[in-house]
């Protein structure tokens, strides 16, 4: 057992993966000497050297594009994109090469590349530092997309993502980097692409991922006072989605609220809603509701408290669902 922040849990996970497989590389801007702007890669270059922890030139397409070439050569690169809003220069390489090479080569060229992206808001940052672009990746065939919400998952999921022979976009909720938890380093983790029940309950289902999971758990706790026994599901995997736990939960509760920081239209949350109405039509006691960011660019940070789904907005949606 160790008490770890999420940042340290990912760091330990990276270290474990690098010790296990000499082909694992860490690459990105400022990941070496500095240890990353969030210190997630702290100390790795010191211990593994400059050929396994690469301080790269400042170019995201270069990071992804060379990682693709390294993967063709047999390496397993773990790329860090410094902030969510900076991934777009690399989006072409992600969509055109990383996602498609396995299919294009009919399995001859696997792409075991992880792209780590600190995402989401709530840290009072300037523009382009608080975005939630996960739907743009979940929509791309050939990519797998996951998001951790706590230090325990962070430790295991990063190792599982690195071990995967498919490219994985790994979204890290940056405002939760300093949340702590006890991590059992000898535990057997659930599969990477599985949703997990984070809190059992019977009267309503809350489904979320990444930074809002904590908000969902707080809402469930607060709703106890109103007599609601809320089940919280951590989606964890956004592509492919693992919705069986959500379906079985909704079949019991009859009510679902999906929570995410990203804008609502054409989002991961929207996909969850569509699939639940398809699979649980006769179980639903109320329309499936969403609590999300708005369909606006991420606002100036003085407005972000109103943009982000918070406890009150989640509870408001719970009330609307329960009162239907």
């Amino acid at each position, binding site marked *: 057992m160790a008490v770890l922040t999420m940042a340290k849990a990912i760091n330990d996970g990276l270290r474990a993966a690098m010790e296990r497989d000499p082909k694992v590389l860490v690459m990105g801007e400022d990941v070496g000497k500095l240890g990353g702007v969030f210190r997630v890669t702290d100390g790795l270059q010191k211990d593994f050297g400059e*050929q396994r922890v690469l301080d*790269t*030139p400042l*170019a995201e*397409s*270069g990071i*992804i*594009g*060379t*990682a*693709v*070439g*390294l*993967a*063709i*050569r*047999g*390496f397993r690169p773990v790329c860090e994109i410094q902030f969510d809003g900076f991934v777009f*220069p690399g989006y*072409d*390489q992600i969509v*055109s*090469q990383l996602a498609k*090479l*396995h*299919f*294009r*080569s*009919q*399995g*001859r*060229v*696997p*792409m*075991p590349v992880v792209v780590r992206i600190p995402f989401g808001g709530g840290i009072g940052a300037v523009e382009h530092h608080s975005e939630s672009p996960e739907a743009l990746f979940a929509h791309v*065939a*050939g990519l*797998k997309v996951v998001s951790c919400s706590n230090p325990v998952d962070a430790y295991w999921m990063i190792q599982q993502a690195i071990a*995967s*022979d*498919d490219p994985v976009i790994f979204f890290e909720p940056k405002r939760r980097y300093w949340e702590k938890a006890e991590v059992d380093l000898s535990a057997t983790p659930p599969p990477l*692409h599985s949703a997990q029940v984070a809190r059992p309950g019977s009267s309503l289902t809350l489904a979320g991922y990444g930074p809002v999971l904590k908000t969902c758990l707080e809402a469930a706790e607060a709703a106890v006072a109103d007599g609601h026994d809320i089940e919280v599901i951590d989606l964890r995997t956004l*592509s*492919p*989605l*693992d919705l069986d736990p959500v379906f079985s939960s909704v079949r019991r509760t009859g009510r679902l609220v999906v929570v995410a920081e990203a804008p609502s239209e054409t989002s991961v949350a929207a996909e969850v809603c569509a699939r639940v109405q398809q699979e649980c039509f006769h179980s639903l006691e109320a329309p499936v509701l969403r609590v999300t960011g708005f369909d606006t660019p991420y606002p100036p940070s003085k407005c972000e408290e109103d943009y982000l789904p918070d406890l009150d907005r989640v509870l408001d949606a719970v009330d609307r669902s329960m009162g239907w």
Partner: protein
Amino acid sequence: MSTPQDWTPPTSAATRPGRDRPGRDHVVAGLKGTDEGGADLVQLLTPEGVRVPDPRFDSYAADVDVEMLKGLYRDLVLVRRFDREGNALQRQGQLGIWVPLLGQEAAQIGAGRAMAPQDMAFPSYREHGVAWTRGVDPTDLLGIFRGTDHGSWDPREKGFHLYTIVIGNQCLNATGYAMGQKFEGKVGGDDAEATMCFFGDGATSQGDVHEGFVWAAVYDAPVVFYCQNNQWAISEPTERQTRVPLYKRAQGYGFPGIRVDGNDVIACLAVTRWALEECRTGNGPVLVEAFTYRMDAHTTSDDPTRYRLADELELWKLKDPIERVRVHLVRSLGVEPEFFDDVQAQADELAARFRQFCVDMPAPAPDRMFSQVYAEGSPAVDAQREEFLAYHASFEGAS
């Protein structure tokens, strides 16, 4: 930097009496041919078919004897032949599109034949000649243009990556691969390797090419950036991409750039050998600009008469990459007509095989689209496949 050794053309080259002049069909290249590409152009075989000395690069072509040159000639002719067949197959509806390499045969054969088996090539989508040199059967290219696959060869087995269609993407992929070669210690030793990255003049405007140059430079990656400047990016001439000659860009990134006559197969071979040697010995990267000309359309969907003058094409025909080798073989090396007849017969045979293979290609099964989307599968894709197959099966027995 390695120091090229001086080399003098062997004086024993066969120049038998009566055979030192080409026939009427062969001299057309010699009538008006002029050099293009400026004073820095490396050229070892003029458009008129004359082998000219070059103190810097002759040593890299010292082994090009008559037999080797005959082999290169055969490469050029066979590649052009199946390329022409590709055009014809498109016109007859057997291919959705073909991307002709006409005019660029020497640039590709010279570069490809300079490579060692352990080297890796990252092509664009016009590199049929390089594919040929890497042992990719021409029929393996057909699926891409017929719409049955995205490239059916094994990239690692052939040392030839799949065609990259997004312009410039492969420059970063090649650089990453070359970084891997370096990380694995495959630079400087007896087992040294290098990477070749192929792209065109249009691609030099892409950010990925610039980033590839930056990365290769700062990591000393053993990669040869081989730019075939064929003067046209679909309808846009090179002056729409650059103010300076492309090879001069390398200087700004801190590595050597060199311009070679891309229609001179001996020069392309020699310069690429030098560039690969630089990379293998730890002096990479290198930029090679092969100055050539796209003698056909961008693709079979393109109409170059809308944007360029026929005169230009006529001028470049005088610098044809195949004719000058033929003239040299005949006039300077005394090769008999039977050789050329034999190569022509081989070319026709290849074209017939290429054509037959094409028309016989089966359409892929409908569920091909679900195949190998992921290495470790995906329940979502599996479910869609099952649903799709059930939908298909529902029509069975229906009239």
